[in-house]
């Protein structure tokens, strides 16, 4: 297994999401993916050249960042949103830290956070509703916005198959599960993280909804929770290396998602939850150094 092989596994794991996105959003989704992947790869080339570092395109990490960024954007976001997001993701979040493996924050999420703050109208909740769209899905608010603003619950069937509005990669809950399980099976993602994210979000949702199973299922399958749990929080570079650390990290992400969803002005919280927990990863790694088999090394004089 090589780094390149690991990135290939991630791309394969993303295939169900990509297909769902293409079915739901057609050409707009395709354009967004092409723009983000191309821009990320180009940005990686330019920034590594500026840093005079080794060319790192071959490892495939820039393509993965581009694809995840595209999948986390609305299909209808204008082209420069994707391009700027990519430049920030690769330049500000990855290469200036030293390139692959050196960054603290998930590059795709940093890129997305940047464009979300820079162009709130083009990527915020309102961006998802395009009244004159030919595709039916685009005329609806996202399931989480509908729930938050008007208390409308989207039927579970629609959430599972992806027949809803949302970011390109988050609409199909089944596709996320399928790709995510593949990722864990290939060990390209640490299984503890998605399990911890989903379980903690489910528990909080169960408690806050007065033990309503249907509310829990809606919470889990709407929005980017599954996409984030399997594909964003599991970015190896920005998540802990110890099994215990991965549990802590996953539970933290799940709790932050639910806190942001319930208490903040945003309908969704995955991006900020992951970025917040990214900041704590070095600490988590240090807290969770396991005791070696047979106990600590004896001190000799």
């Amino acid at each position, binding site marked *: *297994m090589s780094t390149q092989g*690991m990135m290939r596994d991630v791309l394969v794991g993303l295939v169900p999401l990509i297909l769902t996105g293409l079915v739901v959003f057609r050409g707009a989704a395709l354009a967004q993916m092409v723009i983000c992947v191309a821009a990320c790869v180009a940005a990686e080339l330019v920034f590594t050249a500026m840093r005079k570092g080794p060319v790192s395109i071959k490892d495939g990490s820039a393509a993965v960042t581009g694809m995840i960024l595209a999948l986390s954007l609305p299909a209808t976001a204008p082209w420069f949103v994707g391009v700027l997001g990519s430049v920030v993701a690769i330049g500000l979040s990855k290469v200036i830290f*030293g390139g692959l493996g050196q960054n603290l924050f998930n590059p795709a999420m940093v890129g997305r956070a940047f464009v979300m703050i820079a162009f709130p109208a083009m990527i915020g909740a309102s961006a998802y509703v395009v009244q004159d769209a030919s595709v039916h899905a685009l005329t609806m608010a996202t399931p989480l916005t509908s729930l938050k603003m008007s208390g409308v619950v989207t039927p579970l069937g629609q959430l599972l198959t992806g027949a809803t509005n949302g970011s390109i990669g988050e609409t199909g809950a089944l596709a996320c599960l399928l790709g995510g399980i593949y990722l864990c099976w290939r060990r390209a993602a640490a299984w503890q993280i998605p399990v911890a994210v989903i379980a903690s979000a489910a528990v909080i949702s169960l408690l806050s909804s007065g033990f309503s199973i249907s509310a829990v299922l809606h919470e889990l399958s709407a929005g980017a929770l599954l996409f984030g749990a399997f594909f964003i929080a599991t970015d190896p570079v920005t998540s802990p290396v110890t099994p215990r650390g991965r549990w802590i990290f996953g539970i933290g992400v799940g709790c932050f998602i639910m806190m942001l969803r319930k208490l903040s002005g945003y309908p969704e919280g995955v991006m900020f939850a992951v970025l917040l927990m990214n900041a704590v990863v070095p600490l988590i790694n240090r807290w969770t150094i396991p005791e*070696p*088999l*047979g106990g*600590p090394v004896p001190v000799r004089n």
Partner: protein
Amino acid sequence: MTKVAVNYPGKGTFERGIHPPEMKQWAEDKSISVLPTPKELYIPLLQHVGAPAKLLVAPKEQVVYGQVIAEAGGFISAPIHSPVAGVVGRGANITLANGRHVPMVPVVTASDSVGAADGIYEDMLGGEWPLSLLDDFSPEEIVDKIKQAGIVGQGGAAFPTFVKVLKNKDKPVDALVINGCECEPYLTADHRVMLEAPQAVIAGTLLAAKASGAKAIYIAVESNKMDAVEALRPYAQGTAVTLAVVETRYPMGGEKQTVRAVTGRTIPTGGLPLDVGVVVMNVSTTWAVARAVLRGKPLTHRVITVTGRGIAEPKNVLAPVGVPLQELIDFCGGLKADTARIIAGGPMMGFTVGNLKTPVTKGTSGITVMTLDDVHEEETTHCVRCGRCVDVCPLNLIPTKMALAAKNKDWELAKKYHIGACMECGCCAYSCPANIPLVQLIRMGKVQMLKK
């Protein structure tokens, strides 16, 4: 995962570890063949953990087969015997496969015995090893004969065996675990010894148990060597020996792992099996013990696997200690044109050898010859912190952090990550997608920390 029936206290497995391709197909079916006596042997005076042996012979002196040419140089040390009749040459220093520079004495074989190794197989491995004779020896006699025969552990670490089986008043022993796991890929020497001399293995096991006072006796064999288990079974029947089939998994042969799999006990970090009442011994060592006690023969020869894609005819060879690798390679048909790397030992924990004059020692279990196809070097990339090394480390360490701390010479941090507990098994480097030489970095770090 192989499900293994367990009739011993442990679970038959240990936590984490890996299962690399076994690569045993080249040599596992090859019966042990006898190397014709070579013209010259280079006999290192330090072939074990502990103090070097002290030379007893002078240049030009005649020696006979089995004669002591160097005596133990301390308590943890072992005498060395001449494997041939011949003339002692002038001593010099030589570099062993593990990188140590040690004094060496050459022995030139008497011209009439060069090439003739007739009868050695029968003498060493064949014949009967009557278990009824075991009552004739007291524990003290057994320990003494092991000591006189210069036996050291044949699994690789080469710890003088008599020290292990010597009764220790403070730390009583209740279990003996014979390690027949041979979890290194490629190697098959222990496997062949169990198949071809099962009675000697059982006899040696019982002798070692008697010497150490162990009541519970286990021979641990990985589940990919069921034929060895079947070969041992008839001789084990009616004795106190339990054949413990354990899961095929690397590094099952590491003593911490074997003891955990078989007895369920955990050896403390920095401690010995003795700390949990266990003596561990390699299966080929039991054969040497039987030979020493029942036949009065010193440890002069051992079985070495010469294998890999790069060798013309892979074999298991009964060879004298001190034979240069070149002789063994020639005996096995020589190297193929695309040979890329010669390793003393197996690929996981062995040492790459540059000089084919390097002699084998009492601890050399194999020679693995790899071709260009086997060793295709992949580029090292940055650590992506995927944690695969953490997921496979059988000692529950964080290899990537230890290695990076060692690379940055941050010894405090390396200590925080328990670098001293690492046994250098190589599971982490094997699993690393970024191809980082984790073991080398950690090993270097440990050495430099000791120097400070």
